[in-house]
């Protein structure tokens, strides 16, 4: 195992460059959020803000309905992800551990469902929800998000369940457990990382979605953070500082969740993805 000095240095050097490349946009977001306006729209970029200001964050917190939007986003995201996890758990279990007619058809259904171009179906969805008199409500949003993340959740969970050795389940049943008990006592605990990994995808999707909110909920009381953010930016693009402050606040929950769950999630993710 002799490696030249060069051979030892280049992976590390590459890693540092890559780290900088991947992290820079995130850094730029946070640093812009702390800069005074005159340091933002400037001909010579200010790399490290020396004049800090919390003004932009104050602007965000002071914005009308900010906390309502936070509440709505959290509610819709958490409920839709939990809902889809529960439903997927049943479905994925059936699809990995049971043999029945029409299994391939159902698998194909979920794979194609995964391709649904939601953005371009918004008008159809809008008309259905409008005619049901359910506009300006969090309920349809939650349900649609749940279905939006459902196919991937099922497909991923399927992999995790398959990764749990059948023998464990069987030996539990030899010990007198029913199949349900075996599932709860043996498989479910082993699925922990898988559930976390899967929920991450769900969180990202639901947390980011905005075309649907845009058309369904015109009343700001029922809107969510990403919509608010996208309008902040596309309509005027003027207040970069506040936009970046808002983006930062928007990104932080997911960043924390990722860094926290990353290790558990990753180990599970692979087993899920391998199975695909």
């Amino acid at each position, binding site marked *: 195992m002799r490696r030249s000095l060069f051979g030892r240095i280049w992976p590390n050097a590459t890693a540092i460059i890559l780290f900088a490349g991947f992290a820079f946009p995130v850094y730029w977001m946070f640093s812009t959020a702390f800069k005074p306006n005159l340091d933002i729209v400037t001909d010579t970029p200010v790399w490290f803000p020396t004049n800090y200001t919390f003004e932009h964050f104050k602007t965000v917190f002071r914005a009308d309905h900010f906390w309502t939007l936070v509440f709505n986003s959290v509610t819709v995201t958490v409920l839709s992800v939990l809902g889809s996890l529960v439903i997927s758990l049943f479905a994925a279990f059936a699809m990995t551990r049971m043999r029945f007619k029409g299994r391939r058809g159902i698998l194909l259904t979920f794979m194609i469902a995964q391709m649904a171009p939601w953005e371009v179906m918004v008008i159809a969805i809008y008309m259905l929800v409008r005619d049901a008199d359910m506009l300006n409500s969090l309920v349809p949003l939650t349900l649609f998000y749940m279905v939006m993340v459902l196919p991937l959740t099922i497909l991923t969970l399927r992999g995790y369940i398959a990764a749990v050795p059948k023998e464990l389940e069987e030996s539990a049943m030899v010990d007198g457990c029913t199949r349900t008990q075996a599932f709860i006592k043996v498989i479910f605990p082993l699925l922990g990382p898988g559930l976390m990994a899967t929920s991450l995808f769900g969180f990202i999707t639901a947390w980011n979605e905005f075309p649907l909110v845009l058309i369904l909920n015109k009343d700001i009381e029922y809107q969510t953070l990403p919509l608010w953010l996208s309008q902040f930016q596309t309509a005027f693009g003027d207040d970069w500082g506040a936009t970046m402050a808002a*983006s930062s606040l928007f990104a932080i929950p997911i960043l924390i969740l990722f860094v926290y769950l990353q290790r558990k999630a990753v180990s599970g993710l692979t087993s899920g993805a391998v199975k695909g």
Partner: protein
Amino acid sequence: MSVQTERADRAGSAPADTIRKGDAPRGGPAAARKNRAGASVPYLLLLPALLVTAVFLGWPLVKDGMLSFQNLNPRQLILHLTEWNGFDNYSEVLKSSDFWKVVERSVFFTAANVVLTMLAGILIGLLLARLGKKMRLLLMLGLVFAWAMPMIAATTVYQWLFAQRFGVVNYVLDTLGWHSMADYNWLGTQFSTFSIVTLLIVWQSVPFVAINLYAATTTIPREMYEAASLDGAGGWKSFTSVTFPFLKPFLLATTFLQVIWIFKSFAQLFAINGGGPDRLTETLPVYAFVEGVGNQHFGMGAAISFLTIIVLVALTGYYLRIALKNEEDEL
């Protein structure tokens, strides 16, 4: 539901294996013992998933399909009128040269991005496996940041990085001596716009591939490498004979997901340059949105969205076939 499951299992009163055999079609004597309630268990478990999918995806799809045969503009939408116009929307779309250009562009765009993402992802994944613990953690952190960055926040930041006048990228290029880039307008041409969008998409997609690939390599049993090196395999050889075959299903599945995700990219293209300049960076989802919602030609938009689904299914047909075939062999 759980009651039924239990009963089914008791009736089987045997390890799961037997039940599975019992459920199998043409199971010989086992088939005779097949318990009816047991047979319905998988369907009951699948029911909620299928039901919500049918209601919240299937129904809008059907509605979308119906709209695609209608002349639906603001007047019809506001007054709740239904004006069927047969295949007019489809024939108009299919006859327009714009549409075919967009299809071609979408395919190339997807292909380029998927190839770049997969290549970069694989290389970085393998690099992760080679790094020491501390460096690996650092690089992972960078990757996770990019991955976790919400899309809208990310597109805003990229617009900001590549802004013509106050953007950091132009400043850096200028400072490095490439003075013609001082006021370069990244959104001025089709190619440069696609470059930014590609960078953004690859930046956001690589972490998924890289981190998972790294995690997958950690599950490769050491013995396999040892066996390979006993056979005299070098670095490249052991990659092609051990790593690659082991990762193949993973790579296929990941590529499949990337094709779908990248083909469906909407926010990135739309937010960065609105499909411009001169509509030259519109891919199918953006085109459907601009024609349908933007120009308020909703029936037309629905027709395009249907065609979009067909194109995507065609693109992923290969993988779907393989996946279904594997499914048959398993269990």
